[in-house]
């Protein structure tokens, strides 16, 4: 088992009232899963993904990631944990505008303190694998959305994570680009990477092996 959520809740205070973003969410993920989280706007999909990615806090419940109790960890440990095992892919790519493709890819390695030669090799490997060698010195603004998302995925993968969290990875792309991205995810999953994607689209859902449906912060089926 890769991770497990147990009765996890998150809420915000608004006008003296508790508004639940997530309520008593429990599920687990095994290594090699490809999970699609679905639900209407505001159902808590992104919040759930952020919590799994340790980018956000929760108020109640337990979260175990690779046998570590995340809810008991200090910020620094948590940061080390996701740095090592989790890669993120965003709907709006979130590449750093001032850095080139190559430099964007290199960024996670810098924070993991890889040596220069190793960084170079890993970046070259990724550029090659995603067929973007020719684009390595371009800035994000010079790329199409699909290409930017390719770089985003490459960046997520470069540190060799066990889990990829993708928040509507095709949301800003046209259908052809979207299909290509989903094919890449399928391929990655086959190679053993666990994937959790948040999606609106029935079509993308079908790439996954399991579906979690959220409504108003609670799991409806899963």
């Amino acid at each position, binding site marked *: 088992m890769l991770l497990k959520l147990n009765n996890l809740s998150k809420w915000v205070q608004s006008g003296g009232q508790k508004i639940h973003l997530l309520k008593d969410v429990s599920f687990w993920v095994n290594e090699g899963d490809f999970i699609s989280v679905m639900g209407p706007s505001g159902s808590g999909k992104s919040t759930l993904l952020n919590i799994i990615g340790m*980018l956000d806090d929760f108020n109640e419940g337990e979260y175990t990631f690779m046998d570590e109790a995340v809810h008991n960890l200090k910020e620094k440990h948590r940061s080390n944990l996701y740095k090592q095992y989790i890669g*993120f892919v965003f709907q709006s790519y*979130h590449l750093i505008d*001032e*850095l080139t493709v190559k*430099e964007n890819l290199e*960024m*996670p390695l810098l924070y993991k303190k890889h040596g220069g030669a190793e960084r170079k090799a890993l970046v070259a490997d990724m550029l090659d694998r995603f067929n973007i060698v020719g684009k390595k010195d371009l800035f994000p603004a010079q790329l199409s959305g699909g290409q930017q998302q390719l770089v985003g995925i490459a960046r997520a993968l470069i540190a060799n994570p066990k889990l990829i969290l993708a928040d509507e990875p095709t949301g800003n792309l046209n259908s052809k680009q979207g299909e290509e991205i989903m094919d890449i995810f399928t391929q990655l999953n086959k190679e053993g990477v666990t994937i959790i994607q948040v999606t609106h689209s029935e079509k993308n859902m079908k790439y996954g092996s399991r579906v979690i449906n959220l409504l108003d912060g609670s799991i409806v089926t899963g």
Partner: protein
Amino acid sequence: MIKNYFKIAWRNALRQKQFSILNIIGLSIGIATCFIIGFYVHSELSYDMFHEKGDRIYRVNQPDIWGDWEEQVSSTGPNVAIALREDVPEFEEVTRILNTGAQILRVQDDVESNVYNEEFYYAAEENFFDIFSFPWLKGNKATALGQPMSMILSEEKAKIYFGNNDPIGKTVEVKDWQGHWQTYTVKGVIENIPYKSHLQFDVLVSLSSFSDQMKRDGWKWIWTAFGTYALVKEGTDISTLTDKLQAIPPKWAPPTTERIFNQTFEEFTKGYPWKLDLQPLKEIYRSGSPDFHTFGPTGNPMYVKIFGAIGILVLILSSINFMNLSTARSSKRAKEIGVRKVLGSQKTALIKQFILESTLFVFLGTFIALLLVQLSLGVFNTIANTELELLTYLSNPLFLVIVGVFILMLGIISGSYPAFYLSAFRPAETLKGKISSRFKGKGVRNSLVIFQFTISIALVICTLFVQKQLKYTSSLDIGFNRDHILQIHNIEQLGFDTESLKTKLQSNPAFDKVGKSFGLPPNIWTGDRYKTTEGNSDVVQLRNVRTEEDYLDLLGVEFVAGRNFDTSARPNDKYKVILNEEAVKKLGWGIKDNYANESPIGKIVALASGDEDEFEVIGVVKDFNFNSVRQEIGPLVIIHHQNDKVWDYGAGLSYYSMRLHQESFTNASDIQEVITSVQEEIAQIDPSFPFEYSFMDQDFNNTFVAEQQMGLVLNIFTVMALIIACLGLFGLAAFTAEQRVKELGIRKVLGAKISELVVLFTSEFAKLIIISIAIAIPIAYFLVDDWLTNFAYRTSIDLWVFALAAVFALAITVLTVSFQALKSALVNPVESLRAE
């Protein structure tokens, strides 16, 4: 990793060119201003530092025995040094110097003899160079001043007099007060006196050259023309020594008071202590030497304080700007920070990145500032009359350390706010771009803007009042018309009888009136002790000037009682005197309205020095300013210059003044022509006459030269502060405009007019400025009020000046901000709203 930070910093700077440039310019101007002021202040504080024994050298000051006994002045009698040598073993050396005033020198070279008028001409004793270490070039320092008729020249003068020949052993002739040429031998050459010295001289002669006069008058305590300097022995406790000195005047001064004034010491001092104090050499310049320091420049501690404060304020202003803009800008970096965090960056790494970035900016700003300093120092030196050089500072390790520390500090301070603030966010929030929509720190930024404008507005108000005061003093009614009066100096060189010259001058149609005087407003400093002959009246100190009826005519002073001299009709008038109203009051003869009851006319004044000469008052003139309008009008006795019963009859500097006949002058060259013709006329009488002239209105203006200089420098720095504040405001407005573009778009969709949007946007900034104005006005009022106490005649603190400054500040704000407001109001809402 560091490389990555540099790269990001550089590319960010490039991407936001406008911000970067504003930021760097503002910072550079601020730092440059601070450097220049820093140099100036440092220079003012580092006078007289080159003397090897400097920390043991003291000047002996004593009370102003001719006026305010509670005020210490720097001139002492010749006997003080003798008393100190005899009675105080704690002194290793005591020396006197005498400022003889300008002298006429004649130097014979192979071809001809040249005449020079030397202004910085002092007499000093043999041990002068045992105390002061002015660097020697030629001659024997130990013996050079040992003999009478010895002379030491500055390098520059030696070169002028003798060219490349060795000046040692050559002779120089000096005209004495009787018109005889006295021959001096050059015994030494010293380097030109550094400008940072409170003693400035070009020519130094041995005091023993005046042995006759020293024998006759050397015992006097009232010949206060000397500077007395002492070198104390090592390890001497100065306060104990100062206490000990207080026994000297009661022991040594009584012969002076008894023989000259027929008064006991106590009577003479009216019970005030004749206090001797020791002023450390390094304090002399910087503390703004007391009055009657006639040997060189004195500093003005008030200006050092004012400029120091402005320098620090401008630096604070520009640092605030820098922080404000950096912080505002950094919210645009929220996404980058979010991504970095998601990719595993720790908080410390982000903080490091931001601080490194801002330090880099400050470094660049400092570098540009140094260039600006180099470019503008020449202009500053001209305005402020200084000789500052960047290179001397750049080669000073301490300066470099200070600059380094400054760069680090400002970098850390301005980098840490965005660093700590932004890095504290959870990445999930920053990635959603939440920060930019509710970016905090607005309160902080607004208060910083208020602070900046408070300072700038206060500076503007102060500047306006400085100008107003200068204008007021120059247009003040001083009791006579000071315009169009040409004055020829050095008339004493022609001997006492100059009637033939006067006749010639009078016949010149260019002159309405011609008159001779021994002293010129605004520089009438002579004075004496007088009493009335009624009962046992008090002795009072009155200023006096010796002149003639024509001069009073020329000035056009108004008589409130009695009449002018009339020596042609009544020869005895030369033994009569004229008083001003203040003198009448001081002598206890009532005030003007009371003259009818008790007329001062016909009363008698007498010199209080024990002589029995009595002078009848024949007239009273309305008070007029015979000194700078900086001070109140003092009591004045006008004595006829042919009065041979006064002790200084015939001596002293004298002048001819001419009121120009205005119709004869249509342009400046006419005036020059007339001056040349006068010069030629005098040259016929005495070819060696050192021709020198001045105009009285200029002399009056010159008494405010320090204030004018300060006014000019203040103007410049006020403009600097304004520019910096406006740059900051502009940047902030640009930032806010960007932030609010969506809001403005929505308002526009909902029907707001462009003008309404501009007003909405601008008024928010105007509010801040109004708050600044409200704070600045009382501060400025306090400062101006305080500064004006330095003047006897003060301009009124009018409301309209404050109003003007306020309107000006608001206008500048509206100009600065509305551009941005208009820019964002004109954006098509389709554009601005699509972005989400």
